[in-house]
């Protein structure tokens, strides 16, 4: 059982999300704004924080920043459509993922589950991964699709292993660049997009409609092993 801290100023949304998370078997503590959430967070230990973006007193972005000062606990943010800059800020500030309103409860629960599992399996075997018809062994630098070896360029391999570190999570363009190239200087979103495209051509069944390596429009990329 995991303990989840839920912050939202809308009572109806709080109730619905709380019911769904409790049905998943989690213990849920609620807060009506960011300030109260921060107080609850300082009082006890949580495995996941789910927070609305726009709240009175202390907003979602500020809450993420405060929490990141205290702990590496996974944070999931409820955002609104077309606010890509806001999303990038959130992720760069340390949020792990977001769902865009209007979101389905199933989607929210699935994201929460992915974040909790990742926190759990952080000590597992990050070098090996299997999903769909793909198997990756980072140590051996081997990638198999449907049992056949796939040749990846060093950059593509670097992008792949970076994304595999956090299954289900969104990486902003800047975060990916920093991880893959070691710098964001001289690397453009287009450079990244071109490498991503060729990685998809090698691993996706339909590179125009990627299943595993999703584009988060104007934010970054997400590796989602469960379509």
């Amino acid at each position: 059982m995991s303990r989840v801290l839920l912050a939202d100023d809308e009572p109806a949304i709080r109730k619905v999300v709380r019911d769904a998370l409790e049905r998943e078997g989690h213990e849920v503590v609620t807060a009506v704004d960011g300030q109260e959430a921060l107080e609850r967070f300082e009082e006890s230990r949580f495995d996941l924080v789910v927070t609305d973006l726009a709240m009175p007193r202390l907003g979602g972005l500020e809450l993420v920043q405060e929490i990141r000062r205290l702990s590496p606990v996974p944070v999931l943010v409820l955002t609104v459509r077309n606010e890509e800059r806001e999303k990038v800020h959130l992720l760069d500030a340390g949020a792990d993922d977001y769902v865009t309103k209007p979101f389905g409860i199933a989607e929210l629960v699935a994201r929460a589950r992915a974040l909790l599992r990742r926190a759990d399996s952080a000590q597992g075997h990050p070098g090996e991964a299997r999903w769909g018809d793909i198997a990756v062994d980072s140590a051996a630098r081997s990638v198999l699709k449907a049992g056949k070896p796939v040749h990846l360029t060093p950059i593509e391999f670097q992008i792949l292993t970076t994304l595999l570190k956090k299954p289900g999570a969104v990486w902003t363009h800047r975060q990916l660049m920093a991880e893959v190239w070691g710098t964001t200087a001289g690397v453009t979103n287009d450079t990244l997009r071109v490498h991503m495209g060729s990685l998809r051509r090698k691993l996706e069944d339909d590179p125009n409609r990627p299943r595993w390596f999703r584009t988060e429009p104007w934010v970054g990329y997400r590796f989602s092993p469960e379509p």
Partner: protein
Amino acid sequence: MKLPAVRWIGYPAAVLVVGATIALLKLFRQLTVSSVALLLLLTVFLCASVWQSGPGVLAAVLATLGFNFFFLPPLYTFTIADPRNVAALFVFLVSALLIGRLSALSRHRLELIGAERRDLLSLTQLSQGFLADTNRESLIGVAADRLRQALQCREVAILLADDTGELARRAETPGMVLREDLADLAYRQGNSAAYPSELGGTDIYLPIPIGLQRAGVLVARGLLSSERMAEACALLLGLAVERERFLGLARAAAETSTSEQMKSTLLAQLAHDLKTPVAAARGAIENWEKESGASEGSRLAGGQLDALTRRIGELMDVVRLDSGATRPRPERVSCAAIVEAALARFGDALAQHSLFLEPPPTDLAVEVDPSQLTEALGHGLENAARYSPAGSTIRVSVAEDGKNVLFHVSDEGGGVPASERDRVFERFVRLPGSERVPGSGLGLAIARSLVELNGGRLRLGDAPSGGALFEIAIPRAAR
């Protein structure tokens, strides 16, 4: 030393002073002739420097005659016994005249410098006054008064041109009469006019310059200052008017941006208030289905709520566009990134279709708000999916056309008849026969507004495949 009010007083004064000096010198018999000459020269110098040229010359002549008559032997005659004294007397005359002339000149220069200093001082005060005024109406009113003092004139009028180029009197000394024809000439041709005034001094009509243009005309009647001073004042007035115009523009811009920000905050609040109850209801149904299993009723309710959410979203888009709260934030993005983003966001709508994507040229870029163009292109994708049969192909391509980039979405549906292609961009317009297809009739209208907001065009045409062609044209960004 103060300038005498009446100039002719210098002549009798010079006669008196020279006479008195001679009488005084006569009292001191022990003085040598050369000492007397020097003292007389000093007197000439004084007369010339106090009363200037004319009295100076008179003093020089009188002193020469007096020197000859009273001091050169034989005394009390104008005859000169010693021929050497003739030369001395001549030298005395020339020196007296020269000294008189020089001292008068330097006196005159001093006065000029004083006048210029006064002009400069008034100009400085004038410009400080203009800078202190920040409101146009009060600026012009106060400017007329300030100018009247600075220019030492009886009456001042300021005429400024309005937007249509008509001159209007914006400020004037009460009861002032002026010649409209001269003012008009000064404004249209930029020629100044000056003539002697019946009020004394000069009447002058000066254009008020703003850069190479003219803002209006400055009229001064009974002007005592120089024309140069008046021109300098007109220049300052031009700068003040121009500054006031810029301040007005800055204020207006600040007000617009505040009101736009307020609108967009209010609309965000409204959207939130509309969507939250729907989202909560949708979530409650999902929870209920999880617990008690889905029923036909729950699925219907869920589907209806999803439709409602979409309607609210579209209506909010329209309201935002109408209220001017949708401000594009343009940045340079590659066309390939736009296509990728649109497919990522709206690709689900294409699940029943096969997608053919021509890889966009990698170096093609546009300067747009990325979200807005993605959204517009997304409406094209959704429309293609709605109005073409499942299993048919939807084609997406990007091409360069002159200065533009063309984004194309073409389908294999029935297409849109040429006669209806403008009408479908109107709000709530749906073509006959499309009643069964879900939709509000807002998508294309929103898409067109978004494209035009980003400097592009959106039109419908015939696809080579026989269906509809959705075409966005956006100016290409420089490479």
